[in-house]
């Protein structure tokens, strides 16, 4: 399976995603400069975390205009797998590939710590190997407070497009388990036909035993498994 990891000026989790795909999952992986516009040789595209364009103006507001995003739109339309992690999720929202928007965390502070997410559905290309209901994955962001107008929100629910919700260790989506104020504890959503996922937590940061947590690896294994 060939992973393509997009590099915007200001991305900084690109190396981490490459390491996870190439060295942890032993899959084929390549960096894609944001000015390229052909993605045909890839099976899955990762839009990594970071501060594309310094997160100036709005997170992802400028990155969405990069040439590569046109190619990502086409790649997704043709059924290719796309996963946007943290800044990648914000870019997918700004580009309209996923509905809704991110506001500042209600604490107005950057938050970097482990949190728990409940897996809302496992029949997706991104969660089919998630044996357990609750995963422990680190977040690291200042704008992860998901917002959608009521119409969009009910549409997401009907279509089962909500994939992850912030929860406590036993899977209850309480307000105290919500780190940033996201609507209905939303931590990750997918598009209508389920091949584009955006999630705020960083699975690539917990895919190896040495880092003390391998829950994130399940998401990468699900992706590889979905194309077998």
């Amino acid at each position, binding site marked *: 399976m060939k992973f393509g990891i997009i590099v915007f000026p*200001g991305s900084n989790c690109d190396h981490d995603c490459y390491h996870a795909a190439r060295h942890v999952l032993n899959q084929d992986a390549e960096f894609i400069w944001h000015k390229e516009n052909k993605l045909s040789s890839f099976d899955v595209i990762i839009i990594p975390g970071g501060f594309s364009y*310094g997160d100036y103006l709005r997170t992802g507001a400028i990155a969405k205009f990069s040439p590569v995003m046109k190619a990502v739109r086409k790649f997704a339309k043709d059924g290719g797998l796309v996963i946007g992690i943290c800044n990648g999720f914000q870019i997918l929202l700004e580009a309209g590939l996923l509905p809704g928007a991110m506001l500042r965390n209600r604490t107005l502070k950057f938050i970097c710590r482990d949190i728990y997410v409940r897996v809302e559905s496992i029949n997706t290309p991104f969660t089919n190997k998630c044996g357990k209901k609750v995963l422990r994955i680190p977040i690291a962001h200042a704008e992860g407070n998901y917002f959608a107008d009521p119409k969009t929100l009910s549409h997401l629910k009907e279509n089962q497009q909500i994939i992850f919700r912030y929860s406590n260790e036993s899977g209850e989506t309480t307000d105290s388990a919500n780190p940033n104020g996201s609507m209905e504890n939303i931590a990750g959503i997918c598009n209508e036909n389920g091949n584009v996922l955006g999630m705020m937590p960083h699975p690539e940061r917990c895919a190896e035993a040495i880092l003390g947590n391998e829950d994130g690896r399940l998401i990468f294994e699900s992706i590889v498994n979905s194309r077998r």
Partner: protein
Amino acid sequence: MKTLERKEPKITKKLIKDHGLTDEEYQKIINILGRTPTFTELGIFSVMWSEHCSYKSSRVHLRKFPTKGEVVIQGPGENAGAIDIGDGLAAIFKMESHNHPSFIEPYQGAATGVGGILRDIFTMGARPIALMNSLRFGPLQLQKNRYIFEGVVSGIAGYGNCIGVPTVGGEIYFSECYNMNPLVNVFCLGIAKKDGIFRGNASGVGNSLIYAGSKTGRDGIHGVTMASEEFGESSEEKRPNVQVGDPFTEKLLVEACLDVMKKGLVVGIQDMGGAGLTSSSSEMAGRAGTGVEIDTSLVPTREKGMMPYEIMLSESQERMLLVVEKEKEKEVLNIFKKWDLDAVKIGMVTNDGIFRIKYGKNIVAEIPVKSISDSAPVYERPIARPAIQDDINYLDINEIPVNNDFNTILLKLLSIATIANKAWVYEQYDHMVRTNSVVIPGSDAAVIRVKGTNKGLAITTDCNSRYCYLDPYKGGMIAVAEAARNIVCAGARPLAITDCLNFGNPEKPEIMWQFVESIKGISEACKVLNTPVISGNVSFYNDTKGISIYPTPIIGMVGLLESVEQHITQWFKDEGDAIILLGKNLEEIGGSEYLKVIHNIERGKPPEINLNFELQIQKALLDIHKKGLIKSAHDCSEGGLSATIAECCISNKDKGIGAAID
């Protein structure tokens, strides 16, 4: 060819004084040039001979530090130090202070401190992989201290997170002496191939000088000399020449610079830090024994009508100076263009040993390069033991009322800001990016893995400034010993240190006494524990209206784990495990946190320290660990044994674990 828009002002007595130059120093300039200096030359000498750049009050004492050792590849004198960690790799690290700017504008002061230390690392050809910071504030009961504290933490987070280098640890102390003089020291560590280390020298006559990065503005002019002046009331109006950082441009600069270095296109490189273009170009020529010629009219500027004086002294951030062979110029400029960064040739290397600055046709400065660095003034300032020293060392334990409600005392100790949990701070820092963080904040030392090997590096910063106030000699020794303890408690072997020596006004003999005694203590500890000093920084004039900070020589230490899996963390693991105290628990409460918090006393002598005994304990711990017998280890510091054991219980996030002590 541009011509000077404004005539340079004439040199007057007042102008000389405003530049912080003494009469003798001005006379020395006249002897060097054989004439009165131009306005730009006066500016150049004033920044290069400021305390911050020339270390004139400290250089003679810094020579006492041990800087050699079998792991040392590069000692003090370059942008950062380098040590050999095996597998053909080098660890490159350094510490810098940004104290004065952080008092004026906390967010930007701290942010630009991070930006500056990062540049010192990647300019050596190393990929920065970890940041740490040591902070000192006044008590948080005061609103002004809360404002500074919050601004500094969000500034460090704002810059570090955006640049994508994890802030993996550090330390914070709160004490009245830092009310008007907060300390913001930042540490950075990078990894480079042993044969891929770059030096900052302008060699190769005819080679081009390339300016790369952000445009030049009027930021921080006199920023360096400001750092060396004591703060009076006027410090509030030093605006807006505060330096503002742009982490996004710095991220592009890191990638572009590492790219040109990897492709072997660069002869020499240095970041434009304190004193901007002046220090970078003159130091690079100084090291290579060559001259340089710069046409300041070619420098990309952000504001109209900037004079050469301003261009040479500006401390705008995110700028690098490269020395490149003529035929490789085009390729270098293209790489910077790919990353959307300004890059332009502004001059060249010459062989006449002259530092020549032009503005189009006009020559505005011609100074022998050697005279800028080598004949900078060196002072052996007078030293005098403070009159109050004996008085503050006097402590009669019997005079202290014993309050035996020990539970309340322990809870009080654990609640004070210096000891209390710092999650509120480090959870604002991305401490996991680059997926190397094996031990994250909340333990003694941070441990990061070195990808491509199974090694790990343990890093820590330490200094108890109250001990240094009560006895700078023993305080300096303890700072090094405690850093080594933290490294060993993580299962690593201490290798080398960097430092940030924060002191008051060196023109006061008792401050110089504190400085010299601390250096003696640090040097002795480094010799016995075999951790040479490979880089560092001195920050003087941390006084305001006569009140000086406690002597704060912060030590940044790096240790090696042959196998990163063998790291140790500080929290107790399982019920029934034995708790063993290594070392003697003597009846010493001089300068303790207990005395300060419960009795508001800061007196007595710091605890005894026997360096050989310290070395044996540390070696014993590592030997026991090699036999796989250790499940956790923690060093006994602020708050004493009770706080230490409490921390071992509390920091276990998964289990509610307790301890029974006989």
